[in-house]
């Protein structure tokens, strides 16, 4: 039994929320990056369209960010499409020596682990390859994040490398 659609949907919130958190303004130094994590503290909401080959439907997400020890932050997010919701929670920090952000996360899906975000000029590119343990399908997940004023824009896509099917979405998050 193939679970392409289900897996794609389940990985989506994990990646979307991770991406939202990693969309820190790039033109700043490492300590500032760390400090800026705190600017994400608050309640965020976003809604967009989930595009598949022949249909489109709404996806809606929310994210709650609270301060944690040191310069870390805790986050808790949830995304919903018709008939399903998925949640994720974890802690995020900026690592100066690695020049990257790392988010430890656990989710209501099979996904858990460490997500990594790296800065690219005016935006952050985020990429993750994963394999569905049940079906063996391989996925490539790409996202581009832009931060402007109080809105985080996420352009996001999941490609099933086995079936070549694509799911994409654009979700603007705002407080």
């Amino acid at each position: 039994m193939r679970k392409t659609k289900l897996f794609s949907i389940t990985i989506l919130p994990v990646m979307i929320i991770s991406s939202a958190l990693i969309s820190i303004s790039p033109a700043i130094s490492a300590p500032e990056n760390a400090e800026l994590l705190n600017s994400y503290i608050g309640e965020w909401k976003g809604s967009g369209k989930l595009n598949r080959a022949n249909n489109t439907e709404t996806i809606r997400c929310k994210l709650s960010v609270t301060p944690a020890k040191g310069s870390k932050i805790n986050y808790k997010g949830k995304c919903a499409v018709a008939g399903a919701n998925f949640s994720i929670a974890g802690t995020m920090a900026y690592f100066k020596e690695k020049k990257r952000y790392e988010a430890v996360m656990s989710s209501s899906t099979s996904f858990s682990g460490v997500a990594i975000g790296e800065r690219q000029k005016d935006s952050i590119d985020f990429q993750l390859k994963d394999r569905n343990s049940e079906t063996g399908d391989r996925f490539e997940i790409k996202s581009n994040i832009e931060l402007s004023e109080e809105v985080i824009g996420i352009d996001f896509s999941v490609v099933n490398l086995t079936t070549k099917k694509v799911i994409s979405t654009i979700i603007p998050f705002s407080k």
Partner: protein
Amino acid sequence: MSIGFGFERLGIFTLKYPIAVAIVVFAFSALCVSMLPKVTMDGDVLRIYKNSGEEFNRYDELSKAFGTFENDAYILVKSSNLLDPKTISKLRDLSFDLELSSYAVGTLSPFSLRRPAKGEDGSVPAVPEDMQSKEEVAKILTSLRLSDEIMRNLISEDLSGFVMILFPNKELTTGSGEAEMLDELRALALEYSSDEIEIKITGPPVWKSEMLAASINDQMTFSIIGFFVGALVALFCLRSFWGAVLATLTPFISVLWVIGSVTMLFGSFTFLTNVVVTLVLVIAFAESMYFCFTWLRLWREGMEPNKAIIETIIRVTPAAALTSITTMVAFLSLAITQGQGIREFAFSGVIAVAVAFITLITFLPLALKISIKLGFKPPKKVNIAVEAPIPIAKFLTKKYATIISVLSLIVMLGLLYPHFSLKANFDFKDYLPKKSQALDTAKEIDAGVGGVAPIYIKIPLKDGVSSVTDGDFLTIQNVHKILEDNIGQGKVISAASFSSYSELGFSRERIFKAVGPFLKRRFVTDDGEQALITGFLPTLTSSNDLKIIVENTNNALAKANIEGAQVSGFNVLMAYASTDIIYSLRNGLMIAVLVNILIIGIAFRSWRIALVSVVPNFLPILGTELYLYASGSGLQLTTVIALTIAFGIAVDDTIHFLSAYTRAKNDGLNQAEAVSKALENVGPALIATTLILCAGVFVIIFSSLPQIALFGTLTILTFILALLGDILILPALLIAGGRFFKFSGDTKNEKN
């Protein structure tokens, strides 16, 4: 050994070491005060039924296999313009926000349903997002109602509204979490409400919160008013302000100690343990009044006030100890009943009664000693009103002793008929406030979509395949039909509900994938070992109607040879387990009455005394049962508890009277003189106590909770019957018994 089995010595100890005891009393009071901010009431009704028997076990297994259902919140959405695509779009946003609630593990609504996508893999929302006209919306909703049994139970026939169900996260909604979830839902309802959209919330979490709020509010209000009115009546009876304060202080401290002790031991109160506070208030008030009345009488008769305290301890506290023992036995008898709720109630009751007694013999003597030091003077005479009935009682019992005795025996025997005819009755709505908004909303849901209160049939599947084999699917279809035949067409959902999609050519595997893992788990377990068939009943189905449905369904399942099928549900659990608990409580009480009569016999060392106490002890219970029988109220949880309190008070009055009677007999008085003396000494205290308790409880009749109001009516009735039993029937029986009782009362340790 006295009739109090020596427990009154604690009172003597208090007077011997007043400072040490005062320190302990003060320290324990301070500890209990420190507990007050931690006092909570656990609204988890399941705690009451936990380990109560087969129905609970079935429900527990069902919850473990398919998730929990008792916390589902129903959101009723109504709109005069529901078919407008903009309205639908707005309500879709609401469904997303419900799904995104931190407290939700899932939702069920027209917007949560998915159907297999035509011509491709995957699924799409059953309510499309791009509808453009009212006609299109009407077509989709009508089509959903006709083709999908789940939607038929959620969307109203006139397409003016629908129900959205939120399945809460059990871990997050325990304790205060449930109230926080309701706050979040109410905020959402407010956000999406408009001139055109009306949103109401109901379901078990709202009912529980209403019940909790109303009962806590009642408890607070009525305790305060009850104390105040009780103190006023004490003032009226004693004709002394400080006398009334002294009589009221003991029950106040008793209640404080009980609240502190129960919180320390059990962490929180339940709907049942909450009652012991009322019980202890009643008993402590009664005992305190006896104590104060006796002390003031001895003081007025010329005894030095401090010596009068010692003498009061010697005279009153053995009877108080015996009363406490008998009441504790009554509670302990309940502990053998299965169910965590009843056991907690039983042990709380034992603790409460013990605490009330300890307060009486530690705090009250100390308070009286302090009052003497502060210059308290006794009133010259108690109010004439509490003494006036005594000569009448003396006259009647002397002149018509035989008639009263025979009549009371005949009446008591006659009252056995309603006693054995009474049937246990449980209706959830009886426990909700009279003006419950959630109840009104539930009625609207019942009127709109025929109700969403679930009843479940869990069946084992033979093949254990996640997407269900044809053989197992046939079994599900059979059970689906059996339940439908019993509760109505279109009122059942199961894995067999998606026949319209099967007819369109979709495989079972695709249909299950399309509805999503959450909804699928409500039909078939992931391992394919068990299936669930859910029926929707009107929310306000009575327990008797529910039992008929369960029995008919069970019979039909047996006839169809469906092995291992179990009918269950929260409503079913409440209907069956509640009546079991009610009968257990009643039977436990009747056994306790008999055991206590035996204890009275042992304490007074007279089987004759035990025998004579049968009538005044049983009469208030049987008389109250007559009221329940005649009024059609039947035996309910509250009424059985009221009967327990009735027994507590009846036995209290009887023991105090018999104690005074045996003292008089020991002083050499003849039968009639001893009865007369007992009436003079104890009668006014009995009358004053009854007046105070009736006045204190009277306000409860105005409770917004029908059960509490009924509780108030019943306790007042039982107080009056207990008084009649002890100042009229008991003296008449003792006089009419004449020679039969002439040897009774040889308790040598008692003295006048």
